[in-house]
């Protein structure tokens, strides 16, 4: 395959023409896929709509991408009646190509049935259930709900400052969607209610699910150039409902993070501290000497799942892996990721005093992080997890 000709005109920006069938069954999105978007859009490889592959490294990279692409395609487009979730998990751990992400996430969360016969009917039912709940809650009016003004007020001031650096979230039509999702979730989970940070957690779902209906290139800013104001309402309704249900699944696994006194977060912070004492005793001692408490810097890491520390594209890649870890991905594997994240800056931190440590950790230098950096972080976390998970309780001296 030294030369591949591509028709780049097929990559026009906008809504996919077959969006109606994607709404009914997201698998319809996959039949027409031929080449990985990641390859088509890799500018290094495109020369006048033709790419010449000279170097062996490039060849290998392309072959690996193609092979992954084909494996995903094979699993998801299986002719069996059931999609093999175990294989999907194994494959997804190292990241999901963007064209398969939406359906894979929904499958991994057990939102979308793996059984082919049940997929379309389940989706239809879940979306109707969501829409009915919303209509009921908002009493078919646009004046906003009246039931819980405190919650509604908090949501309505937080939504406009959700991912404010991303243009997509500045459109009123998107903000209204997020408000409804968050408010319905809060009403249905009174023990926790809406807690700041949950707004952040809804956005990877929203963005990934919406992207599924768009002809996007692999440029990560592409969604930023997209104006959702005139998008077909059926698409937005589907994206909104799917986001609600998947967010609900995610939050079910970390509900202790958001109830009174946030015991889930306290536990995670203590486990992180305990881990650092085992992984990097010098760093742990230095932090202690400087009077740094783990709660001071890692509370937010747990509360927002590192969404304030990493770009949303990095977070989306991270969730590919978290979602394969089953119910514990966001509550347990995440702690190992946080440990790997902290230890990454060990050398710098050990040279710093209290205030510099605090300020550094509030704004760690991750602006230029790529998917590869996230991949390394996840692999490190995996190593720590295999070494320390279920380690004997007597090793726990600091939690």
């Amino acid at each position, binding site marked *: 395959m030294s030369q591949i000709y591509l028709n780049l005109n097929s990559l026009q920006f906008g809504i996919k023409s077959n969006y109606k069938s994607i709404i009914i069954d997201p698998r319809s999105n996959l039949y027409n896929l031929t080449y990985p978007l990641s390859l088509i859009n890799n500018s290094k490889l495109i020369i006048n709509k033709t790419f010449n592959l000279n170097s062996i490294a490039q060849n290998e990279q392309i072959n690996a991408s193609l092979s992954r692409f084909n494996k995903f395609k094979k699993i998801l487009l299986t002719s069996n009646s059931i999609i093999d979730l175990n294989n999907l998990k194994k494959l997804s751990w190292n990241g999901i190509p963007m064209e398969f992400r939406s359906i894979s996430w929904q499958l991994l969360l057990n939102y979308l049935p793996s059984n082919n016969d049940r997929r379309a009917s389940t989706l239809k039912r879940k979306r109707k259930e969501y829409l009915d709940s919303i209509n009921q809650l908002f009493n078919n009016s646009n004046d906003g709900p009246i039931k819980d003004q405190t919650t509604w007020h908090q949501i309505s001031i937080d939504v406009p400052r959700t991912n404010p650096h991303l243009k997509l979230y500045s459109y009123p039509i998107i903000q209204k969607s997020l408000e409804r999702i968050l408010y319905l979730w809060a009403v249905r989970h009174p023990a926790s209610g809406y807690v*700041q940070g949950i707004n952040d957690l809804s956005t990877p779902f929203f963005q990934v699910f919406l992207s599924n209906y768009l002809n996007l290139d692999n440029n990560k800013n592409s969604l930023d150039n997209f104006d959702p104001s005139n998008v077909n309402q059926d698409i937005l309704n589907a994206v909104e409902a799917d986001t609600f249900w998947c967010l609900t699944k995610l939050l079910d696994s970390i509900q202790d993070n958001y109830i009174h006194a946030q015991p889930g977060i306290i536990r995670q912070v203590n486990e992180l501290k305990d881990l650092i004492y085992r992984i990097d005793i010098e760093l742990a001692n230095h932090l202690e000497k400087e009077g740094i408490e783990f709660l001071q810097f890692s509370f937010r890491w747990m509360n927002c799942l590192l969404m304030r520390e990493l770009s949303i594209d990095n977070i989306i890649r991270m969730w590919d892996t978290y979602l394969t870890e089953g119910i514990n991905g966001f509550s347990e594997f995440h702690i190992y990721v946080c440990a790997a994240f902290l230890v990454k800056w060990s050398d710098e931190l050990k040279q710093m005093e209290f205030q510099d440590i605090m300020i550094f950790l509030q704004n760690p230098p991750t602006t230029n992080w790529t998917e590869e950096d996230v991949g390394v972080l996840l692999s490190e976390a995996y190593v720590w997890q295999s070494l320390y998970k279920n380690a004997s309780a007597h090793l726990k001296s600091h939690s």
Partner: protein
Amino acid sequence: MTDDYSYDYEYLFKIVLIGDSGVGKSNLLSRFTRNEFNLESRSTIGVEFATRTVEIDGKRVKAQIWDTAGQERYRAITSAYYRGAVGALVVYDISKAESYESVSRWLKELKEHADANIVIELVGNKSDLDHLRAVPTDEAKNFAAENQLLFTEASALNAENVDLSFHQLLKSIYDMVSKHQFDMNDYSSQAPSKGPTVDLTPKQNEEKSSKGNNCC
């Protein structure tokens, strides 16, 4: 008063920034510590930290400021930061009556969790929104006087009175600390990184000895 941002200082004062969600606490802090204002700032989660050193009466005073999340759910986490604080800015939004009505609740929080002698300043933020004003200046000023609070209206957006409100608070803490005639070496000789160091409640014997020294 001249300021700079260097690391040397003679006093370290821990300050907490509290008030309802969305009143502009984080922007007051970033305006004071970095002279920055961000219209698109995200909500604060838990507690965030910043410092600035200013000069008061020829002494270098470092303010170590803990900016807290305004939402009720975070109260259990944030109230732990009140301990050891010698000053508090209770912030409301002059265009939002509810945020002013919450002030007594925030004062109660301080009473429950903070040091009894903590110096408190009431700050009406967003003074640039005068056309949307919902809280009359006099009303807030009187409330502050009745409750022995310092008071300013400020705007993080146009920077009006931001430095003033922090300086006023720090000066008041400084005066109080000086009046109590603490042994300043206790604070200045400690490792600066150890966090909050000034204790506003004199211990029994310190109180006696300071009275004894007060003869001049």
